[in-house]
Every structure is written in C-alpha cells, then in structure tokens.
C-alpha cells in the first residue's frame, strides 16, 4: 500500500497550512456502483479522507437525510460486503477510506474478521458512533493487529476526564461532534464547536476533526480556523437525492466538494 494513511494526510494538510476535508457518503446510495463513483468524484475534487458509511437499519446518530439514504440503500439490497469494494476504490483513487459503522454490523461479522477484511481492502480504520472505548477491548486489539485507525467520538457534553479517556484510545484523529444532536446540516455551527476542539486539544496531541452540521464553504472556513479537519456528511449526501441522471447529481456533488475544499483553505491566515 503506497498511498498515504490518515495521519500522513493530516500532517500534509497541516504543512500546507490548511485543514483537511473529510467527506461522508453511505455505500449503496443511490446504488453500490453509484456511491462508489460519487466517492471517487469527491476525491478528485479535493476531499482528503473519505468516510465510507455502511447503511444500518437503526441509525440512531443520524438525522433525516442520512436515514433516508441508508433506508434506500438497504431497500436496494446493499450488503456489508459492498463496503469493502468502496474502500478499495477510494484507496485506488488516492485517499484513505475510514469506515463509519454502527457497532452491531461489526459484531455480527466478527470483530477480527471485519478488521482483516477492512485491512485487506485498503481500509484505513473505523469511525464508531455507538461504540465507546469502555466497550471496545476487542476492537482495540484487532485494530492494533491490523494497524487500523480508531476514531472514537467526543461531544460537547464530554467531561475533561472522559475526553482524556476517549482520546487515549483514538488513533488517526479524534472525531469531535460540534453540537449535541444527530447528523444534518445546520444554519450555524455553534460556539460549542470551538469549545470542544479547544478542550480536546488540551488533553491530546492527536489531530482533532469536527463534524455534525457543516454544509457550506463559509462554515468549512470557520471550522478550518480551529480544527485539523472538517467533516461533511448530510450536505454531500443530499446532492445525490433527486430525479435527474446520476451524472448530473454527481456534478452537483463535485461542485459542493470544490466549494468546501476552497473553504478549508480559507480558514487560516
């Protein structure tokens, strides 16, 4: 594997004096092929790291846009196996793929088998929205064996003790939820985002990337001023909804990606 990992990408962005852009899309929406084309398009337009979602029947951290996309993907027959095709394609396009998954999908496959399959298919690691480090002994061991990154989440409600405990188990970067709530674009990204990044930096040297609610170039620029990476999900997924040709929807996705990529380059003096 010659392409860079998550840490190298984040270090390179830092050298360039900018934040990284991390883009989320779920596998299987609007189809497995379509989602892979869309992920590759994001990489071509400036996404530095791709967060590859696996659709799940009970996505309790997701708002309406991602819920709908996941439901449509499952309805169309998307399987967990499909995620490994996506990670391989994203890796071939030159960006590290991190898989975002609810925990039961990993448990069901078996933590060790999931980790081995992920590593064999170019995957860089996992983002686990409903797994806290306290419950993650098997995943921590498997990710060590397969040299995979582990992005646990921290939230505005996290106490200093929890921030220290959680970040101690992260590898790659720390995923900071900017607001209390579920995924979905918001008109303003709260002061809580600045607060959580600052408090997280106080307890770890790892890069801190911020997600939940980012949808515009201006928001990306604002967050790029404080965070090492800006994570965008629902706003990108929304581009893939609609009646038109898939190629047109992917054009809309490319346009938004270019805007966001410009945003993460504007945040710093």
């Amino acid at each position: 594997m010659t392409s860079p990992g998550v840490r190298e990408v984040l270090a390179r962005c830092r050298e360039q004096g900018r934040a990284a852009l991390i883009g989320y899309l779920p596998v299987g929406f609007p189809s497995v092929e379509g989602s892979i084309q869309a992920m590759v398009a994001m990489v071509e337009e400036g996404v530095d790291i791709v967060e590859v979602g696996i659709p799940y029947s009970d996505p309790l951290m997701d708002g309406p846009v991602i819920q709908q996309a996941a439901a449509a993907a499952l309805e169309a027959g998307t399987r967990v196996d499909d995620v490994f095709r996506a990670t391989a394609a994203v890796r071939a396009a030159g960006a590290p793929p991190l898989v975002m998954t609810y925990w039961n999908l990993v448990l069901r496959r078996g933590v060790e088998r999931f980790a081995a399959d992920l590593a064999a298919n170019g995957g860089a690691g996992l983002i686990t929205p409903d797994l806290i480090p306290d419950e993650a002994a098997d995943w921590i061991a498997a990710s060590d064996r397969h040299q995979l990154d582990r992005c646990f989440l921290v939230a505005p409600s996290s106490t200093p003790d929890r921030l220290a405990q959680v970040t101690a188990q992260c590898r790659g970067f720390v995923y900071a939820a900017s607001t209390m709530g579920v995924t979905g674009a918001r008109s303003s990204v709260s002061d809580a985002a600045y607060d959580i990044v600052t408090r997280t930096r106080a307890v770890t040297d790892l890069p801190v990337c911020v997600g939940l609610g980012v949808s515009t170039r201006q928001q990306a620029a604002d967050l790029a001023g404080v965070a090492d990476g800006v994570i965008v999900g629902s706003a990108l997924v929304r581009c893939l909804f609609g009646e038109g040709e898939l190629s047109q929807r992917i054009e809309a996705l490319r346009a938004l990606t270019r805007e966001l990529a410009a945003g993460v380059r504007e945040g710093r003096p």
Partner: protein
Amino acid sequence: MSEQRPAVGRFGPFGGRYVPEALIPALEQLDEARLKAAVDPDFEAELARLHRSYTGRPSIITEVPRFAAHCGGARVLLKREDLNHTGSHKINNVLAQALLTKRMGKSRVIAETGAGQHGVATATAAALMGLECTIYMGKVDTERQALNVARMKILGAEVIAVEHGSATLKDAINEALRDWVTNVDNTHYLIGTVTGPHPFPEMVRDFHRIIGVEARAQVLDLTGRLPDAVLACVGGGSNAMGIFHAFIPDAQVRLIGVEAGGEGLASGRHAARFAADATPGVLHGAMSYLMQDEDGQTIESHSISAGLDYPSVGPEHSWLRDSGRAEYRYAVDSDVMDAFHLLCRTEGIIPALESAHALVGAMEVGRELGPEALLLVNLSGRGDKDMHTAAAYFGLIEEAQ
C-alpha cells in the same frame, strides 16, 4: 490512561453501554442519582407514599379457579398489576424515574411506547409532577392503540408518531434516543423497560421488583407455600423481571417468560427472540438476544400485541436464559386471543393482549404439571386499550369505517 476500566452494567456477557459518547455524562449522572436515591430514606418514603396512595399498591392477587379448569386443574393465581392506576405495571417504574428526574434538576421527560401503557404512565407522572412530556410512538401503534394516544394527549403530553422503519416500538426508541442526544441538558429519557444502556436494565428492574416482593409474600400467605412456576410475558421484559426477581434465590420455583410467537416461527412474523436461530447482538445500547439478519441488520418483529412487538429483549433475560435460571417459550397470536377470551368469559377479567401471552403459558404449564401445581401469573395490564383489536378479531364490530 491506556488501561480500560472494567465494563459496567453486565449480566454475564449481556448489557453494557453501546451509545454515543454524548450520552455518557447523562448516564453517569443518572447512575449516581439512582444509587444515592436507593439509600435515601426520603426517596423511599416518597415513592412508598405514591405507591400506596396514588397507584393503589399493594396490588392484590386473585385466584382464578374457573380459568384454572383449563390449565390442567392446576391452581392459578394472578398478580393484578392491571388494577394499578393507569392500568398496568408500568407506573411503578415511571413514578420512581420521574422523582429521579426532579432530583437531577431536569424539567422534561421523553419516552417511547409500544402499546401506549408506558406512554400513558409517563404522561400521568409528568402531569402529577409538573414535567414537560414528549412521547414517541410508532405510527402503526398509534393506529392500533388510538385510545391510549388520546389518553396521553388529554394528560398534556405531546405524542409524536414515528413513520420511518417499521413504524413500531424499535423506531420509536431510535427517535427518542435522537431527541435525548439533542436535548440531554434538560431532558431525561424515561425508558420503559429493562433494556437500553446501563444503568437502565438494572434500575428499571429494581423499580419493578416490588411486584415479586409483594406477590411472594401474598402467595405464601394464601397457600403456605411458594409457587411451582411464575409466568410473565416478555417484550422488553420489565413486568417479567419485576415478578421474577424476588424468586431468583428460590431455586425450586420455575421462572417462565412467554414471548410473542406472532403468526408462528415459520411465518417469520414473530417476536420470539429466544426461539429459532437466536443470536446475541447490540440494539439500543445493550448487548442481548436480537432478531437480526446475517449482516447484523435488525429484522422487524411482529405481534398482535404492540407491547411485545420488539426485536430485542432486556439483557438480564438473556442472562437468565443462558444461565438456565429462567426458561422461555412463546405463544402465537391465535392462542393468545383464545386465552384472552377465556379469561374474560370465565373470570370477568379483561387482560391486556400482552398479559394474555402469560395466560397461554399458564394453560400449557398447568397441563404439563397437573392438578398439584401452583402457578403465579403476572397479569401485567388490563385490556381496555385492546378493545378495538379484540372486537375486530372476534368480528364484533362492523367494518363500517
């Protein structure tokens, strides 16, 4: 800080806390509050007062000889949780959690509900204690339990019909969890059953434990001996944990949970999590037995009773099953309706369809054990809410609308 703390809230391998990090502080706050309350005489006195003068505890036991004639002649006693204020056992846990909500300085409660009994109990406690209240209920359930929707609204609660997914209890829980993670500052999620992340399974069990404590003494008092078996229906499993818990040390007493067999296992439309090819998994914050496909996607459950229509089960039940202390069987919809009808006609007691599952269990176990047997059945709720379903099933109403 590289070592992990030991996992909390486990029943053997089951339970735990599989939730977003954002909820951890609220769960720790809740755990602290309930442990403090458990040793606080003021809390105990206030709860005891509410049980006595608001709910109407202790609930009685009723011997049902005419029904028992259909149970192999075994002696059958019903623990009458249906006589509680609001019509089911749910109020026991709700009053206690509402008191905790006030103690934690929160002003709003949210809850999920399937049959509507937990929603009604929560709306009731919110009215009593001046709390803001939002209830999440699957759209399918709002239709089959319309009476309870009206009750909740009359009591001042906002009822949100959840339309996505299977539009039943599991989707209502997803939506309640989304609300909680957004509003956790001022909101307590008043979970209505013995599942969810620690400390809910343990805490809700402790708040229902009074059912078994009372019943054990009442049965001894009436018959001079312990029952041979204690039976209860199991959806999430709160009424069953409530009546089982005090009997767990009595090794000679069989603990029998009855799941919803729906239209039968072969149909795939059931909620018998422990039957067929049962496997553990994680849903709604807890590791437990779960209806799931080979990828780990949740399989939709089915039951004629909304309160048992749930694809997972409280983690302590999984542990009681795997350790052999409790046994689980299931009752199919048609047998449930027959047992429902039989209790109405032989004893003049209209049970909830959920509780009628336990009655099917009593009929089977009574026939297995014969006339010497003594059975205690938790009649967890009354059937007023089920009149529409029952009337339609038995063809008592015109299909006019």
